[in-house]
């Protein structure tokens, strides 16, 4: 498999054309702030006023390198950066014509071409951007580290278009590997055929349907026996929110209290999606479901969601985290910790899981909604490590977007009135304040 590389992403809707990135680039390369020395340029569209990026994309098959007659340009196979060597350059400028992104340009002051070298892996432009319009992406590390691992679910399982659960289980099992017993209680993950239908199975590891009610108990029993005979087999649950927070809560709570060794992943799509979108205890306030319908009297769910991951932290699990598929590096880092923690106790990861079918949004919006959930503080990302009693946020919760930017994307919130939105905004704030108490306690303890 080819290697994958880090890159700089540009989100034009977040850019206001302040030129901080341009100055930072010039400064780090020449010590001056003149835009003439910047390898990056932000170009304003004269018609619609939007911003565009002129920057080397460090292409996989770079035209500049191909067109250079002097061999002054080459791609570094380790970093992916396209390097320019001044001593070999004949100053023909053919490269500037070859590039479609204005990624290599002529500097009239130095009278040489210049291009981005990613600042050696710590790009100044992304660091200086206060609005998050430029982001240095390192998620290619995941591809390099785990891309060669076998996908332990077969292709063609019957998930809905744009299913977050399918994305999640493929990544998760690829990371955790085949020495695993997988439990998929009744719900979407079982419903897509992971355990199988009429004698065929979709999973390459041992997999089974527990009851909706006893996932953690069955895994606990199996793991105890493997411990007894000296085999280190990972126990992994993909529970839905119903099987976790509602009817399966007792067995999960018991297993957590006893410190049973497993990784329990709750894929929280905020209701019984597989059975026709009914309410669960993690359905958020105001949400439409088929059992909290919207009519002339009722306007969606009237209670707030059960704070499941906090409850698990209160069980003193070895490891507890929240996660979102829009933040895959964060998720993988948490999986690493969960794998380690499950050797001596319970690791619980609560994954925010938008559902195109049940929440009523177009499948292509999945990751954007997952991201907006985090950026509006509707879904704070945090982790708790029992060993050392550490609690911290893994994504900044300061300066969140207004919650409406999240709610307005989702059909199940279409009916909300101003009071309901206000309630959700307040609850988000309250949740963050509560979590910050854990975080501050941790800071005080550390100091």
């Amino acid at each position, binding site marked *: 498999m080819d290697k994958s590389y880090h890159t700089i992403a540009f989100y034009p809707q977040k850019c206001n054309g302040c030129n901080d990135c341009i100055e930072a680039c010039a400064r780090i390369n020449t010590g001056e702030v003149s835009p003439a020395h910047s390898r990056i340029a932000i170009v304003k569209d004269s018609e619609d006023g939007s911003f565009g990026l002129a920057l080397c994309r460090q292409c996989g098959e770079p035209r500049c390198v191909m067109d250079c007659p002097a061999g002054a340009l080459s791609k570094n196979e380790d970093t992916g950066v396209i390097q320019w060597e001044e001593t070999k350059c004949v100053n023909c400028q053919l490269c500037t014509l070859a590039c479609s992104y204005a990624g290599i340009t002529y500097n009239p002051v130095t009278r040489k071409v210049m291009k981005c070298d990613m600042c050696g892996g710590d790009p100044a432009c992304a660091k200086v951007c206060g609005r998050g319009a430029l982001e240095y992406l390192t998620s290619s590390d995941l591809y390099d580290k785990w891309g060669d691992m076998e996908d332990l679910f077969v292709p063609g399982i019957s998930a809905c278009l744009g299913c977050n659960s399918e994305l999640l289980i493929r990544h998760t099992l690829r990371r955790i590997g085949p020495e695993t017993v997988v439990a998929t209680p009744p719900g979407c993950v079982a419903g897509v055929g992971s355990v199988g239908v009429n004698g065929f199975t979709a999973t390459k590891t*041992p997999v089974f349907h527990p009851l909706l009610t006893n996932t953690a*108990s069955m895994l606990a*029993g199996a793991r105890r026996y493997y411990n007894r005979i000296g085999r280190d087999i990972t126990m992994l649950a993909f529970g839905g929110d119903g099987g976790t927070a509602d009817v399966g809560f007792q067995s999960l709570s018991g297993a957590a209290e006893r410190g049973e060794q497993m990784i329990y992943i709750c894929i929280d799509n905020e209701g019984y999606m597989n059975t026709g979108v009914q309410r669960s205890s993690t359905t958020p306030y105001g949400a439409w479901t088929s059992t909290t319908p919207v009519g002339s009297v009722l306007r969606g769910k009237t209670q707030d969601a059960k704070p499941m991951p906090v409850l698990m932290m209160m069980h003193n699990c070895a490891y507890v985290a929240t996660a979102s598929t829009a933040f895959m590096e964060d998720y993988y880092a948490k999986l690493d910790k969960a794998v380690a923690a499950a050797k001596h106790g319970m690791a619980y990861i609560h994954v925010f899981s938008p559902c195109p079918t049940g929440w009523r949004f177009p499948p292509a919006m999945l990751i954007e909604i997952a991201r907006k959930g985090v950026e509006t503080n509707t879904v704070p990302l945090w982790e708790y490590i029992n060993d050392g009693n550490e609690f911290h946020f893994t994504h900044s919760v300061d300066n969140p977007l207004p919650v409406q930017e999240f709610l307005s994307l989702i059909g199940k919130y279409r009916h909300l009135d101003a009071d309901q939105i206000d309630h959700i905004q307040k609850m988000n704030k309250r949740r963050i304040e509560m979590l910050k108490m854990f975080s501050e306690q941790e800071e005080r303890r550390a100091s």
Partner: protein
Amino acid sequence: MSKTIVCDGNEAAAWGVVKARPDMVAVYPITPQSSLAEYISQFVADGLIEADLMDVEGEHSVLSVLQGACLAGARTFTATCGQGLAFMFEPYFRTPPLRLPIVMSLVTRDGISPQCVWGGQQDAMTVREVGWIQMYCETNQEILDTIIMAYKIAEHRDVMLPTNVCHDGNYQSYGVEQVEIPDQGDVDAFLGEKNTNWHVALDPDRPMGVDPLTGGAAASGASLFVRYRKGTCKGMQNALRVIAEVHEEWGRKIGRHYSPLVEEYRLDDADYAIVTIGGMTGAGKDAVDMAREAGEKVGLIKVKTFRPYPLQAMLQAVSKVKAVGIVDRSVSFGWNAGPVYQEVLSTLYHRKERIPAVSFIGGLAGADITEDHFSQIIETTARTLRDEIPEGPIWINE
């Protein structure tokens, strides 16, 4: 070396577990099973049982952890009764078609409501159609011996079914008798290799999808489901043979003989008989002896194995008499009679000639069925031979 002690039925059951050497025992207390859970826990603490003890948060999880362990390869044990069994029902009725050879004591207890914590067989009888093997014991010795035999039956390759060993709450759970604990070497030789998950497993060394969705309108799904159902039924029918073989082998190797399915007591020359199940049988036998001394030609049929139903053995027994009185310690609400009575009626259909049969219901909620009660039961049954057939059921202790 075998050893003789004096103990109650719950302790006798725990000693059976000691000798069967399970890998995992799971416990949750409920009256009148609690002291059995305590004996098991103490025996683990003392190293007499080298098993993983899982004291979990409820009966639902008790059976669930055992299912997980069994699928990984463990030999397992637990005990429950009454409301505990009711709460356990969801995993319970899934265990037989998963073909998991889990052994569980049912220290039988009556059902609520009205609120009640005492013995009765309503719990075990209520789950009689689920697919667990059910054996009912008469003495504390039989409890101990049957628990060991249960493993050999449940784990037999032709059976592979979970097994309940039932003894009566109160009268047997707390009643004290002399019990001989067999020699560990003899038991090991008797039980042989454990056999728990050759057919279905959660093991990365032989990955499989356990319990995939099966059935549906497609012909292939329907036929596959039927195959599973027939397989479980066949395992149950095989168990009739295996239970008999295992009891015979136990008698041969250990020296204690029990009727495996149905015991016939003073039946060969009897005109009529009473049918008993569980701990009431002792009083029943005494009453039969007294009636015999008075010249009555009465015998007794004791049900040891109720599931699978021992049709041929029962048919053979009831074919020897001209009337039967069946004593139940539970109620079939749907039939206004006792469950054992209903099953004996089904058996009688296989006879050419019709004979009278009377349903007696007694011993509910901890009540005693005394020798006097049994004498009345015998007398009432005898009168049916003179065409005095009472309206049933007849409620004892009313």
